[in-house]
């Protein structure tokens, strides 16, 4: 064998370790699941928006609007009776529609009298993620088309209206129903805008803390092994659980300090994009109460413990600093996935597989908590806290068990099993 071949063979052998492949395999599986789920979202995006309408005007001008609805949307409710408004909204809700649009009886009369014809839109909002707002954006587009078609009609028929009405003949009055709340005067895109500005910082900060503190804890374990200090530590009169807890708590503290520094910088960055909005979030109830903030804090805390105990588990597998860096990779991915998923879709509107994946990743819960608490979804938040707490306890038990076995020093845990097996024989 040539020298080059010899070196390649040696390098490949050294790199072909479980620590190299296991994280990549886990990530491939995660991406596979994510890909399938996003595929189902794409199918949803290609469908026409489901709407209902009431045309109480029944005029030539209102027919322009209704014909656009018929052609470009999946109309599931159609009436000319205004008293059927509640029935229409219920039907939209039941059939997972987007909105009920009402053309009042004075629609064309107003336009012809130089007043904008008002379209009342009752939105049934399902989620506040980027993908969730796609169907409402499609309805928004219909309104724009209606506006321009009526405008064309007014100009081509030489209607006696002033220029501003001719160019912009309609106005809209939005009411959004979202998670049991009736939000008057705002559209789903306004709601999504308010929620995203309120709930962007926690996922990003959470992701940063997990990655920073997690890499500290994994590296700490790796350095104990690489610097040959672990053996001494394990023979000192200190309980294994104290070693594990000590590493987790110290990494959490350092992680929090790093996060605070990060938050200060990030909030300056975010403030530069803040536009003082006209939406009164307090009167709409789109703010967190002090008890909600406490729950968010609790969720962040238990998640940090979960993340660090998971990293401790990974750290027990690290042989040296180099392998520790590879082990940080799955933690980064597991922190990034929920951050992006919660940006794109609301938990409620996700396909079941994605819901399972998101709930299963413990880092997701504080990212979902603020939005869920605004809409009083305490079940998701409390369930998440309990799940993350159980995850942390299980992880700590596993890590302490590993600390009590030979695995840390010899890479094998099977001695207890072999002892049991021997006893049975």
């Amino acid at each position: 064998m040539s020298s080059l071949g010899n070196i390649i063979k040696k390098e490949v052998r050294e790199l072909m370790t479980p620590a190299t492949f296991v994280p990549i395999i886990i990530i491939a599986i995660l991406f596979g699941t994510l890909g399938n789920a996003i595929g189902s979202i794409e199918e949803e995006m290609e469908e026409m928006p489901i709407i209902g309408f009431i045309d109480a005007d029944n005029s030539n001008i209102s027919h322009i609007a209704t014909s656009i609805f018929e052609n470009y949307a999946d109309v599931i409710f159609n009436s000319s009776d205004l008293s059927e408004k509640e029935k229409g909204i219920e039907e939209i809700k039941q059939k997972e529609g987007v909105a009920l649009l009402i053309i009042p009886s004075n629609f064309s009369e107003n336009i012809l009298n130089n007043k904008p014809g008002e379209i009342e839109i009752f939105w049934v909002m399902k989620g506040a993620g980027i993908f969730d707002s796609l169907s409402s954006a499609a309805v928004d587009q219909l309104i724009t088309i209606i506006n321009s078609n009526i405008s064309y009609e007014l100009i081509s028929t030489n209607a006696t209206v002033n220029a501003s009405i001719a160019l912009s003949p309609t106005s809209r009055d939005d009411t959004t129903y979202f998670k049991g709340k009736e939000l008057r005067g705002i559209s789903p895109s306004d709601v999504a805008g308010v929620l995203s500005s309120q709930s962007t910082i926690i996922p990003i900060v959470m992701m940063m803390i997990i990655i920073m503190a997690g890499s500290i804890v994994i590296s700490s374990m790796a350095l104990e092994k690489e610097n040959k200090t672990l053996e001494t530590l394990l023979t000192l009169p200190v309980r294994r659980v104290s070693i594990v807890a000590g590493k987790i708590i110290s990494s959490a503290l350092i992680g929090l300090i790093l996060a605070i520094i990060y938050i200060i910088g990030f909030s300056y960055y975010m403030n530069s994009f803040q536009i003082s909005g006209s939406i009164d979030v307090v009167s709409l109830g789109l703010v967190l109460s002090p008890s909600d903030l406490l729950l968010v804090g609790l969720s962040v805390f238990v998640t940090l413990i979960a993340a660090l105990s998971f990293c401790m588990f990974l750290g027990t597998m690290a042989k040296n600093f180099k392998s520790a860096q590879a082990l940080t990779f799955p933690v980064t991915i597991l922190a990034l996935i929920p951050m992006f998923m919660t940006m794109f879709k609301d938990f409620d509107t996700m396909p079941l597989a994605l819901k399972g994946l998101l709930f299963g990743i413990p880092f997701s819960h504080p990212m979902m908590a603020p939005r869920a608490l605004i809409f009083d979804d305490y079940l998701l938040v409390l369930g998440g806290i309990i799940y993350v707490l159980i995850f942390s306890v299980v992880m700590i038990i596993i890590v302490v068990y590993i600390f009590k076995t030979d695995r840390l020093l010899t890479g094998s845990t099977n001695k207890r099993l072999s002892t049991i097996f021997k006893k049975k024989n």
Partner: protein
Amino acid sequence: MPVVKVKNLVKNYGTIEAVKGISFSVNRGEIFGLIGPNGAGKTTTLRIVSTLISITSGSIKIMDHNLQKEPDEIRKIISYLPEDAGAYKNLTGKRYLEFIANFFERNNLQQMIKKGEQIANLGDRINDKVDTYSKGMMRKLLVGRALMIDPKLAILDEPTSGLDVNNAQEIRKLIKNTAKAGTTILLSSHNMLEVEFLCDRIALISDGKIIEEGTPKSLMIKYKAKNVEEVFTKVVR
């Protein structure tokens, strides 16, 4: 009463039998040496006695504490110096001693640290970061760490490994004096001359089994050998 009592100790790593039923005991203040080639099972035995790894079968008692049932009690009275041990590189030598002493002594902490400094004998360099130490300095610091706590049993794996003649001699003297002060010492070594100088009794270990045991002098007489190295060659053959 022996400080260490090892009975029929077996340790398997999967299908590999690292230690195959060895028994020995070490009395108070005695220096007992495990001698053998690489892979004979010396380090595995010391790691087991240090509570680091588990026993497959057999039993170990240290000062009447059962190693399998009371590892936490045993850790209070032992001190282990691994062969290639290191220290926390971002700490100074003194801080490292302080870190270790905090696990043992709360009342006479400074006294214990002072003792560690004296044993390590690093002068002003004790206030430097461990990262800047030479291999010899590091080993002296670790010996200081291991002996400053006045352990009932000091377990030293190749205590002079990698040291030059002067440093090795200094450490050997320290070990001798520590044993005279009442600490029991269980050590392993490749260095037969070192063993002959240090140990009151030795056990020759090969392929996971103790093949001979006794005082260096009695073994040299028994095998008509000039030194322990010759004894070992004759026994293994």
